[in-house]
């Protein structure tokens, strides 16, 4: 239990630092940034404490907002993702997901990919919609969501493969 807590705290800090120092400065085509810090919410243990996940997601989002002057948009997107996460698990892995030991940071199967894709889309859609805050920008917003989602997923998968524990 203690090691899970430690791993998650470490992941929280590391992803946040990476996001702020490296990924926030990546601007593909001038306006597309990846947000791989959502990996914290995605990789959180399946049977972990849900309230703790909500609270830590909120903290994660608020710190992101602090650094990017975006009001509460990151926080909203993060807690929304944290809240719908069980539903996404059910959708991607089938009803009995709680009894399986799902380890997301292993070989990429279609189920795992579906789960990551859905999580990132939900997070980015909320984030960019709230950031634009205007329906007249909807087409631009959707384009940004699409491009950023692709970018984020590529980076997320690279990170997952990089930190994958090598046991064979």
């Amino acid at each position, binding site marked *: 239990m203690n090691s899970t807590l430690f791993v998650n705290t470490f992941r929280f800090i590391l992803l946040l630092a990476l996001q*702020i*120092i490296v990924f926030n400065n990546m*601007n593909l085509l*001038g*306006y*597309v*940034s990846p947000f791989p810090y959502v990996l914290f919410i995605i990789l959180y243990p399946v049977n972990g404490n*849900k*309230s703790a996940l*909500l*609270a830590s997601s*909120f903290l994660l*989002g*608020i710190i992101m*907002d*602090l*650094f*990017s*002057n*975006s*009001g*509460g*948009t990151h*926080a*909203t997107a993060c*807690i*929304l993702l*944290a*809240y719908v996460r069980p539903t996404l698990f059910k959708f991607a892995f089938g009803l009995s997901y709680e009894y399986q030991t799902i380890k997301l940071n292993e070989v990429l199967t279609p189920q795992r990919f579906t789960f990551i894709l859905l999580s990132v889309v939900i997070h980015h859609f909320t984030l960019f919609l*709230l*950031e*634009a*805050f*205007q329906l007249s*920008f909807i087409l*631009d917003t959707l384009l940004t969501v699409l491009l950023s989602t692709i970018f984020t997923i590529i980076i997320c998968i690279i990170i997952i493969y990089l930190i994958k524990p090598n046991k064979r």
Partner: protein
Amino acid sequence: MQQIFNFIFKNSNRLLFLLLLGISLSLTIQSHSFHRSKIISSANFLSGGVYEKINNVNEYLNLKAQNDALAQENATLKSLLFNKKDTANVKLMDSLKGVKPGDILVSKVIHNSYNVYENYLTINSGELDGVKPDMGVINSLGIVGIVENTSKNYATVISILNKRSQINAKIKKSNHFGSLNWNGKSTGFVQLTDLPRLAMIKIGDTIVTGGQSVIFPENINIGTISKIYRDTQTNFYTLDVKLFNDMTNIGHVYIIKSKDKEEITNLEKREKDE
């Protein structure tokens, strides 16, 4: 009573979610409303300090570009000094109306965003250096933005690349006023709206800050006209203005303390009260 406790225990997750959602949504909405400072902004000890550290590294990597910009500015100033005739065309900062030499603070941008609809810069001087909200921020090429939030050592600046920014601007040669906005599309262009159709304009004309603004002194460069849209419904032009500044690459900036600002605001307030 028992049932209420049961309900709270059963739905603790949902209630926590709703509480946090409420907080973050209200922060979001608050940040999108006009004329209100943000609660969550990067002008604080934590993010200011981190950005300063990051910027120290970045600055080192950009030394060459900064040197070029300084050399360019030096050359302009030298040309002003040597060819006295030029002073009629380009105004020295010191000679701008309402600004005295001591009223300009030099500061450094430690964080700059330009990829969302509401962009902000963070600079490394704050209240201790005399920075207050609503001061104008410019650099050697033209305007950069307006100070919004300040902390002890840092301040955030609304970039001109921000949907919420609205700055009074005019055509340099004709004194027709309009207001400067950004449509969120390109970092190199801003839009000048509400310019009367009577104005004689052509592509390439220079746009400068107007005299109606109490934040910026008059005649600070903004950009040149690159596209003219004629709206048949109204009597106004909308122009695309190509900025002199590259907003994606801003190093040192000047903050202008306008002494006239209080005087003008007080005067206008008195007018309204009467």
